[in-house]
């Protein structure tokens, strides 16, 4: 990775109008919040009118959908950022594309449904669905233009400069043409299926997010196409126009490397297909070929009262594939007759039509970022430290946890420690039971493999697989069945609640009795995303945590009512009340002149009640530091409302994912971590877990982590009172890229321990593994 310290010292402004995107389907999962609050006149408040918390004039609240687009805009900023390696810029661009897809499939679709049903109630931000839909459409149209501007004016020229180019068939030399012809004949032709459209053959069903080419033809073979339409004189036309659709096969890579003079030359699949389209319609004249892409409403409607949730979700997935179109992407210069034909056939809102440059579907650049042989154009590989400092010198993970609580910071420290925890438990003859929640898991999850082995080894294995994890439903059903076949006791979560908490419980029989070991984390048990997401996990065998964990699993299994948790904060059983109480406590302390302050790092801040309490706290003088990666509906820096609140967003090489909460508590600060964001869904409709850090060493470490993130002035952008995000000026201070700093810290600790081991005549409990296989 280039030296971030040189980067972004210039002030770069991303306004809320300047729309640009970054990753994360996690932000999309909530349904449209109800209009629990009356209209909010943010402009009045921003203009300096003293805000009050009375119902008729509540606190300001920024619309969550608009805020989401702003977040995606910050990701696009990274694609624009010339100091980022160009293939990483491609990756950021691809991420903006996939994010936007999901945003349409869930959030825009939700707004559109409200518009279609003439729902006119205003949301918390004061917008009607119709107003919001229009604003979103405008904002996303602008954003889309920026995506393509970034690609064409910045990324593609840079790639060319680095010897990487995309060319179209009309610019190809004979050798290249011959290459793609051969590819078309051998690979493409057998998998292409042209779908003709006429009165007997209706418009075909098109898969969500699939790329298609609409072909306008002059039919010369009447046998193929029914004669229809007469001219004014009633005379039948000799040669009729018709349409057909050819789907660009999703199973093949979108880009094909072709022979070139130097570097890498690529061609897009749709260009090859269009070049040889006549081969599919021999005997007919092709008038135009127009690529287009359709995005559908993909929000599942699940009847949770169904006898078998697994079957119900399978059925819903099938329905999702047939959801109503919410976006039609056409390419600029699209044949007007084709455009008219498609918009007529697909029944999409005018605002839902997006005319874009080539290529459609920018998600291809996520894969393109991984092209072989060009590591120089990517961030240097990040090697997670293994073993993490907290486990140095231990071969027995249970011994390590028995000695004291342990913390692991991913991906700077290897996720392997978490996998090892489950693996050791699977093979340990003293382990009686393992319980784990799974929300999103990787394709070949070593955790799942370990759980299966544990069941085979006779352990009682209980796995809560959340079938309702959006877009992972199918994947999770498959895992669930595999686990069941292996003898695990698989449970599918609770009716009406998504299980989002990340917890593993190991029950072990020891000489002094049963002991429970726990891992609790801020991120999923997914070894793949653990290489890209920043998360924190804690291991402990403190008995109150063990009892709470057992109670939680008994509740999740449906064996018991929810218990009264002694240490854990669990949603929906008290998390909202606890957070609200903690914030109020700070407010009270500030009023009494006691030390007060709140630092919270979340992915999204949406919950109106929490936001109002934060405003109250700010007004009472509580200093509030918020690190909100994505959606932030709180508006900081407003006079009389939020001038004590500072909001920053970190968007960088890694996806900020950990949730950390610090409360000054009158001078005796408390710190918590967990799976919950400050969103209504997390506090009210999910099973979430937030846990306190009790070990003094770990507390210090957690404070330091939070402080380091807060001091970031490279990847951090500050949200201003006008909702714009600006880079933080260094003003003579050294540049701090918190993610890079954490990489250094993890390595330094590792090297320190390695050096200490080398210097010490005493043999450690076991030599640590020196190889770090995990690479990013």
């Amino acid at each position, binding site marked *: 990775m280039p030296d971030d310290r040189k980067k972004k010292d210039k002030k770069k402004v991303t306004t809320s109008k300047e729309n640009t995107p970054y990753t994360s389907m996690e932000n999309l999962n909530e349904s449209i919040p109800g209009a629990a609050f009356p209209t909010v006149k943010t402009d009045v408040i921003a203009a300096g009118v003293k805000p009050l918390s009375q119902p008729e004039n509540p606190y300001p609240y920024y619309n969550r959908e608009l805020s989401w687009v702003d977040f995606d805009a910050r990701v696009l900023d990274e694609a624009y950022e010339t100091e980022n390696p160009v293939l990483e810029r491609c990756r950021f661009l691809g991420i903006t594309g996939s994010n936007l897809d999901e945003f349409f499939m869930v959030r825009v679709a939700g707004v559109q449904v409200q518009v279609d049903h003439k729902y006119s109630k205003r949301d918390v931000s004061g917008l009607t669905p119709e107003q919001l839909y229009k604003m979103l459409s405008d904002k996303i149209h602008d954003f889309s233009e920026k995506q393509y501007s970034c690609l064409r004016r910045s990324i593609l020229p840079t790639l060319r400069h680095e010897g990487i180019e995309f060319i179209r068939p009309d610019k190809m030399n004979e050798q290249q043409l011959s290459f793609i012809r051969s590819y078309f004949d051998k690979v493409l032709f057998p998998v292409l299926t042209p779908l003709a459209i006429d009165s007997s053959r209706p418009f075909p069903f098109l898969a969500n997010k699939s790329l298609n080419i609409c072909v306008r033809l002059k039919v010369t073979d009447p046998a193929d196409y029914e004669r229809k339409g007469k001219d004014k004189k009633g005379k039948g036309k000799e040669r009729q126009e018709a349409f057909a659709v050819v789907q660009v096969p999703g199973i093949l890579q979108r880009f094909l490397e072709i022979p070139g003079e130097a570097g890498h030359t690529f061609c897009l699949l749709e260009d090859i297909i269009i070049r040889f389209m006549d081969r599919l319609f021999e005997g007919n004249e092709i008038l135009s070929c127009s690529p287009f892409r359709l995005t559908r409403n993909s929000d599942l409607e699940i009847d949770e009262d169904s006898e078998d949730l697994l079957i119900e979700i399978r059925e819903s997935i099938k329905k999702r594939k047939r959801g109503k179109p919410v976006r039609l992407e056409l390419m600029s210069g699209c044949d007007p007759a084709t455009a008219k034909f498609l918009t007529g056939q697909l029944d999409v809102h005018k605002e839902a039509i997006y005319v874009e440059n080539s290529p459609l579907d920018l998600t291809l650049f996520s894969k393109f970022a991984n092209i072989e042989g060009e590591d120089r154009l990517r961030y240097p590989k990040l090697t997670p430290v293994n073993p993490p400092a907290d486990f140095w010198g231990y071969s027995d993970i249970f011994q390590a946890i028995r000695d004291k609580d342990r913390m692991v910071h991913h991906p700077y420290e290897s996720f392997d420690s978490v996998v090892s925890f489950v693996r050791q438990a699977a093979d340990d003859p003293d382990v009686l*039971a393992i319980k784990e929640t799974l929300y999103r898991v990787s394709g070949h999850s070593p955790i799942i493999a370990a759980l299966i082995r544990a069941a085979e080894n006779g352990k*009682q294995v209980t796995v809560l697989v959340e079938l309702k994890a959006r877009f992972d439903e199918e994947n999770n059903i498959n895992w669930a069945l595999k686990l069941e076949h292996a003898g695990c*006791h698989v449970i599918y979560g609770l009716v009406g609640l998504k299980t989002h908490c990340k917890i593993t419980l190991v029950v072990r*029989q020891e000489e002094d009795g049963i002991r429970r070991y726990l891992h609790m984390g801020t991120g999923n048990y997914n070894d793949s995303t653990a290489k890209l997401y920043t998360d924190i996990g804690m291991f402990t065998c403190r008995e109150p945590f063990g009892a709470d964990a*057992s109670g939680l699993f008994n509740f999740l299994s449906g064996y*018991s009512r929810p218990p009264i948790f002694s240490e854990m904060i669990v949603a929906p059983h008290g998390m909202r009340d606890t957070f609200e109480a903690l914030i109020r406590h700070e407010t009270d302390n500030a009023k009494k002149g006691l030390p007060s302050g709140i630092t919270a790092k979340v992915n999204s801040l949406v919950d109106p009640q929490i936001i109002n309490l934060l405003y109250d706290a700010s007004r009472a003088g509580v200093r509030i530091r918020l690190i909100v990666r994505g959606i932030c509906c709180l508006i900081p820096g407003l006079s009389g409302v939020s001038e004590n609140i500072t909001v920053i967003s970190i968007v960088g090489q890694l996806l900020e994912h950990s949730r950390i909460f610090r409360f000054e508590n009158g001078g005796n600060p408390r710190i918590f971590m967990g799976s919950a964001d400050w969103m209504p869904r997390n506090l009210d409709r999910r099973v979430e877990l937030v846990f306190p850090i009790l070990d003094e060493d770990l507390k210090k470490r957690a404070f330091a982590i939070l402080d380091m993130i807060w001091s970031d002035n490279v990847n951090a952008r500050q949200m201003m009172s006008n909702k714009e995000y600006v880079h933080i000026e260094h003003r003579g201070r050294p540049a701090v890229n918190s993610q890079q700093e954490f990489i250094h810290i993890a390595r330094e600790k590792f090297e320190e321990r390695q050096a200490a081991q080398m210097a010490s005549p005493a043999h450690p409990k076991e030599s640590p593994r020196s190889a770090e296989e995990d690479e990013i």
Partner: protein
Amino acid sequence: MKANRCPKVAALIDIGSSETRMQIAQVRKGKMDRIEALSYPVALGRDVYATGRVSQTTVRELIKALEGFLNVIREYAVSDVTAVTTTALRRAKNRDLVLDQVKIRTGIDIRVLEDNEEKSLIYYEMIRTLRESSALPDETTLFSFVGSGSVGIAFYNGRTMYDSMTVPTGALQLGEMFRSIQQTTDDFGHVIADYIHSMLTYDNLEVDCRNIRHVVFTGSMISVIAAMTDCPFTGGMYRIPVEKMRALYDEIRAQRPESIAIRYKVSIRIAEMLYLSLALYLSLVSFTQADTVLSPRSDMSDCLIRSVLIPAELAAYRDYLLDIVLSCAATTADFYHCNKAHSEYIRDISLKMFDRLSSQHSLSQRDRAVLELACVLHECGHAVSARHHLQSGYDVIRHTDLIGATKGDMLLAATIARYNELEEPDLSDPEFESLPEDSRTRAAKLTAIFRAANALDNTHTEKLSDITVRMREETLEIAGRTNENMYLERYAFEQCAAYFTDVFGTGIRLRVRSALK
């Protein structure tokens, strides 16, 4: 790790009227360490109090709950599973069928605890917690447990429980009553107070209440009341000022359960139970001078599982049981004007005989306690009928509710006390014949001892002193010292010898020495 090197892990399932609970515990550093605590709502009480039976739907729910519990049991390699049930199933007409279905489907044998067993367990836990917290009053204290099926009331004298009673109407049943009376009065509290008063008056217990300054209450609603009156759980218990309880009651008394539920964010069921429990507690407290209600944690499951895990705890519980049974029996004996000195005298001789015969009778410590009980209560019948005092005594003892004693215990004690030197048990006695077979043998052995001991104080003058009991050449020899005429005692004793020999296969003889030197 080898299983035998690990501390024992036990599970206790408690099938209550409104929920089925389980706890799993182990011994760590000599103390019980609870690992798991589960609760699953199964409304057995609703069914039983409404129809007298447990419906099939509820049985299925119960089985489902137990199957879930069994999964957790497997996760801890539990070696000892005890399942008990109390009021609701005890009163169900189809109890045996329910127990059978549960046994077949889950393999779990459920023991139906008698009301007295349940209450004695609860009081034990209350006393134990108070003692551990140094909060056990050293003067007369009223203990009460408000369950969904019954209300237990007991009196503690600073050393032990000395009297108790059970009001056979609990909060759930009051709920049914409440729903019908609610139409005619908005002050159900007075109705409850009248009801409680009438129950106390039967036993003249309201007199005992008047000077009481300490009350210790428990029940499922206490924690709710504590939360609503802002009384934290500290030092192992809640301390709730009566004034606050009364204020809460005044606040909710005019509200419908639905309004209470909305206002306090509780379920309607809790709201209803809250109102009724408060009314019950306040009725009880109104008979006393107490200004604060103490409420320690008092889960009978704790006592049961501790007894399984820790042998010393079992012994302690047995001692406690014996203590309260005998204390309460003494109170009952007083009520019937029994001769206390005589009872004590023959109790002493009986126990000496019992212990000396231990290698020959294979009876348990519980049987020993029943023998004591018979000795204490055997004269109750005299207050009813001098002519038929044996039969009257049998009836009184048999139908006396004594905390700590089961119906079986009382029946056995009644049977033992039914015989004197002139009457001996045989199968022609309908009472004796009706005993279960194993109880008949126990009854015969205990009666043989009791009769002989009783015969030695036939004149109620405790003539013999320095009594020793020893085995000599296949004969149990009872020796004592006296200068008084022992003809009547000797005669009575000899009447008992043949039966004694029949029962034990051992002879018995009396050796009296002169006290004069």
